[in-house]
């Protein structure tokens, strides 16, 4: 009876969830999109994905071990997620050197300079991506043609993305119905058979992954639904007003990074709001800013910028949009007093 008893406060049990479980869950959810990317872009997709993951994990380990002198936390999977997402946001013919620079910026500046996982205000993969986009605009906006470029990497044949076809066509005076014949069919856009960043094209694969995240309760529906919903509503209104200048909502959802952004980038735990209402506001903000940039701005695509802008608002949203407290709205209906 003299064994030593362990003393600690309640609760004495834990549900078994862990940081790696969530991170590896995200990686699993990204696998269908990775398969689609490998199928359509072949060797280029393989090279940039592996390089980006390896570089992100390596930089995290290096900086934590030698610069910050802390225990490296690469095993939690978050650096690998950043690497995978960064790759998914790059064209598949981008030179290795740029990927490594992007990874260094994403991990070094985007994540660790703020104190590592949990403290970074901006989505690290997007910090890396936007840094590359601004510094190397040419390499970052040349898009390999799917299928035909399977066996090519840097030398892949390139073409404009549907979003830039529309953007440039409209500003050159063409109408949407005329331009529609120049872009791939919606079916091809849905399965990913179009030019664009490595992992953002295959709508069906991204939706599958998103469903997995919801099913595993890694994310809730609030952010993806509000992002996609607001893109649909906003572009729908514009399209109704003037169908010859504004493409329809389905086009806007399938082209570019809306689905990848809505399910995988905007939902990044660290940089998105905490309360349900906050998530909805944040999602609507992303949807609206995306459309504003695409339709009225100078870039053909705006998801990355929109998410980063809303990331900046997250602390404010958290401060003012609290979850609804228990008992906040008291039911005044009195229960019957007899059977």
């Amino acid at each position, binding site marked *: *009876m003299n*064994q030593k*008893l*362990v*003393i*600690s*406060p*309640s*609760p*004495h*049990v*834990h*549900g078994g*969830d*862990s*940081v790696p*479980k*969530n991170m590896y869950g995200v990686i699993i959810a990204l696998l269908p999109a990775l398969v689609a990317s490998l199928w359509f872009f072949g060797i280029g997709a393989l090279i940039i994905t592996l390089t980006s993951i390896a570089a992100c994990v390596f930089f995290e380990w290096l900086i934590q071990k030698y610069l910050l002198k802390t225990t490296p*936390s690469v095993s*939690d999977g*978050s650096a690998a997620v950043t690497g995978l997402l960064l790759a998914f946001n790059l064209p598949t013919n981008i030179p290795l050197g740029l990927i490594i620079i992007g990874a260094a910026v994403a991990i070094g500046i985007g994540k660790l300079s703020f*104190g*590592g*996982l*949990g*403290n970074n205000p901006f989505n690290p993969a997007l910090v890396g991506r936007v840094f590359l986009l601004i510094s190397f605009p040419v390499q970052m906006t040349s898009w390999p043609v799917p299928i035909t470029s399977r066996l090519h990497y840097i030398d892949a044949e390139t073409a404009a993305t549907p979003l830039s076809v529309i953007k440039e066509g409209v500003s050159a005076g063409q109408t949407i119905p005329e331009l529609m014949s120049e872009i791939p069919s919606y079916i091809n856009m849905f399965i990913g058979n179009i030019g664009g960043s490595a992992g953002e094209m295959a709508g069906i694969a991204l939706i599958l992954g998103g469903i997995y995240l919801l099913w595993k309760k890694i994310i*809730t529906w609030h952010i993806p639904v509000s992002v996609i919903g607001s893109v649909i509503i906003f572009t729908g209104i514009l399209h109704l007003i003037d169908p010859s200048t504004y493409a329809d909502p389905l086009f806007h959802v399938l082209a570019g990074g809306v689905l990848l952004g809505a399910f995988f980038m905007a939902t990044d*735990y*660290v*940089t*998105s709001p*905490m*309360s349900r209402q906050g998530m909805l506001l944040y999602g609507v903000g992303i949807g609206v800013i995306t459309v504003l940039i695409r339709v009225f701005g100078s870039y053909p695509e705006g998801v990355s910028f929109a998410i980063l802008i809303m990331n900046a608002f997250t602390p404010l949203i*958290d401060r003012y949009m*609290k*979850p*609804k*407290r*228990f*008992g*906040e*709205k*008291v*039911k005044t*209906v*009195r*229960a*019957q*007093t*007899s*059977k």
Partner: protein
Amino acid sequence: MLKTFKKGGVHPDERKISAGKSIEILPLPKRVAVPTTQHIGAPAKPLVKKGDIVKTGQLIAASGGFVSANIHSPVSGKVFKTDEVVDASGYRKPAIIIDTEGDEWDESIDRSDKLVKEIALSGEEIIKKTGEMGIVGMGGATFPTHVKLSPPPGKKCEILLINGVECEPYLTSDHRIMLEKSEELMVGIRILMKALKVNRAVIGIENNKPDAIGKLTNLAAKEDGIEVQPLKVKYPQGGEKQLIDAITGRQVPSGKLPIEVGAVVHNVGTTFAVYEAIQKNKPLIERVVTVTGPGITQPSNFLVRIGTPVGQLIEAAGGLPDNMGKVIGGGPMMGKALVNLDVPVTKGSSGILVLPHEEAHRAPVENCIRCSKCISACPMGLEPYLLMIEAEKELWDRAENDNIMDCIECGSCSFTCPAHRPLLDYIRLGKGKVGQIIRNRN
């Protein structure tokens, strides 16, 4: 769709391994240590001294105020001394220590098994007697029952809720009472209804106890105004506010008592004790305690005299396993880790849970990844991650504004957190501080 409470909640493994075990009477302990604070409120004042001879059921400490409770001797014998003993809270508390000699009961107590249905006392008499018999909430909160039966002026009770949820994993004492003392329970409910002057009572039972639901539903069909409400299994449904929400759909406002929405909640164990007190003249001197855990060879439900050392219960259930790590008074979500095996069973002890070594330690704490899962889990709609930060940084006014005092300490947040953050530890600390600040202000 089965009813349940609306906000938050978690699903810990149920592990009700002792559910099929009938209540067994534990042999009398050689010595009992009876703390004078086994309830919320003022300590009771001892009425006996060293050397006094007491009978089982004799009053040995008198209630120290309105919110307090009488304490009766759980055994017959000789008072050895009054001293301080460590109780489940880990603190030393004054206690009356009695050496057992035989088992001679106070003559006024009816010890027969005969069911007494007729309720002779009036409502006021019931409340008074509940106080005299030292009845307190036996689900763990230990709030004196007579206080809960006396609604503050201007407030009227409309519905009595009987808590048969037992949402803590492992614990089965209430489950066994519902099965084995069903008829007495019905009379107990009638008594409470009479005292509260209500004509409707609902027994809330989680769906994982179909036998109890079936049995009580049959009995309730014969009673006027008593119903059974099966509930979806979800922790912490046994929390008063959660149970009221689940059954009536009314939410008790922040800082208010259930009576605010016309409800009063009593636990099934308490209801049975009320039956015995009013119909049998029996004070609260024994209770049903579940002894359980992965390494316990004979998980059991014992009828135990108050003051029995927990070590004796564990011995009777097959003894401590070799890989023992932690002994908990109560369930795994809200129970208290005991400092030794001499801690006595008190009126609020619903179970003794022995966890093996490998389950007794917490995983290392990591950075908050802001996953918001603690918010989704919190039944009170709080932001545990934020309350922890505020408590760490001692931002007490912000913690108060963020409703830290609403926390019911259910532990769902810490249970859920993938980064294993000790959320409730900090929130508890914060509640202590903020509570003090509020008291000083008023």
